[in-house]
């Protein structure tokens, strides 16, 4: 279960979720590597309006893959 506090590095290492991130306007990986802090912090920097909805959708996406 991914939360605001989950490290983006850990998310990318464990799950195949790039398509979800990009579709929803957030790039978790760049020339600096995986974003080095929490998902919540990344969503804040990207000014995602509803971070909870993003995270909920992400968790559903992961469940849907399995």
């Amino acid at each position, binding site marked *: 279960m991914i939360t605001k506090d989950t490290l983006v590095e850990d998310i990318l290492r464990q799950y195949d979720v790039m398509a979800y991130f990009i579709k929803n306007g957030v790039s978790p990986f760049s020339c600096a590597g*995986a974003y080095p802090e929490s998902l919540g912090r990344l969503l804040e920097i990207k000014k995602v309006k509803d971070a909870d909805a993003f995270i909920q959708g992400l968790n559903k996406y992961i469940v849907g893959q399995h």
Partner: protein
Amino acid sequence: MEKYIDSSYQLFIDGKWVNGKEGKTFNSYNPANGELLATCVDAGKEDVDLAVKAAWKAFDSWKNVSPQERARMLLKIADLIDENTEKLAMVETLDNGKPIRETRNIDVPLSADHFRYFASAIRTEEGHATMIDKDTLSIILREPIGVVGQIIPWNFPLLMAAWKLAPALAAGCCVVLKPSSETSLSALELFKLLSEVLPPGVVNLITGKGSGAGNYMLEHEGFRKLAFTGSTEVGYTIADAAAKKLIPATLELGGKSANIYFPDAPWDKAIEGLQMGILFNQGQVCCAGSRVFIHEDIYDRFLEEAVKAFENIKVGLPWEEDTIMGSQINNTQLKKILSYVEVGKEEGARVATGGYQIKDNGLEKGNFMKPTILVDVKNSMRVAQEEIFGPVVCFIKFRDEEEVIKMANDSEYGLGGAVWTKDINRAFRVARAIETGRMWVNNYNNLPAHAPFGGYKKSGIGRETHKVILEHYTQMKNIYISLTEEKFGLY
């Protein structure tokens, strides 16, 4: 093929190769075939602290080394890089996935030249002196800022290490450098050479994850300056860390640069320039020409020739001599690029060529992308506004100068760009009108020392590859001298 890579590496702290205190490691893999290359240390907090302490210990004497002696060392470093060209080139190719023709002919020579440029720059650096009035002398000197923390990306690992280290050392600073955990190997090999020249502690190398070693560097109170090349998102984090400590940070961040073609563009060079702009380094370049604006009079012919050129690009194993484009850095980045192609299609763009992963001809185990052109793109689309960081270019038609300047500037970024025309007045008009730190005219992605490089807007703060960066690594000291023994009469 000789591999030149050790099976494992340590950290470089205080002139010695040492294990990490926490015993954690990570693996480096060849992105072209998934093979394990080496094991590196995943540094912890204590390792960062030891590196910073070593740097401060060395600073006491390093700051007093004469410019002549510092220049001699920088020139020696350049010579060692040249002497080890083949080794450094192959290490970079295997670790990053970029073609050997690029690492051998561009990454390594430019790295050596960077040390030579800054060796020259400091031999001509001088302070100032002026008489404020007949009794008052003002002297301005520049002094090294101290110990600096430097974090570099995976797209040009060796060259970015050179861009950061050369000016910092030239200025008299001591350094703690962290390469990306994706590509630590060429920096590690570079530090073997640096250890032959520099006193212990002047340069220190910390490897590890961004969330670990990287963040420990940002939290450490011992730095007087931070320097970063990477994404805009992480740039915010670096800037925040620097602001909390009231220290400066120079940032070279992302881009979505406009490569602009007028009808009188020198044609063959223009088609090459398109490829230089978006296929060089597999499109993994912060200043990539990822938005191509083509005048409506030449659009159809340009597109036809561009498609032909893209389809003729040999994408292959990067260590093969005839490979033009190698592997993307890893599967995560490849999936990001492919996701953006899908986003583009959903937005109404069309794939004129490419748009898929190459999985045959011995490339099945790697992360190879077909060079891709998206057409029917509007400048407002996400694929035209967001940094994809791969060999995917958006073609956008324009009518006149006013329209293309407006579209080029309609971006949160401002790093690079180019104008292709034989009309010198138009070249200057357009170059000056685009809000970006670098405008190439009739060329693209040339990044030598001696020409300043850096961004406007969300593309960063500060300029590198030019002696002006020495100001960022030094402090200004003013010595204000009263030459009279007469009282002022105030008290």
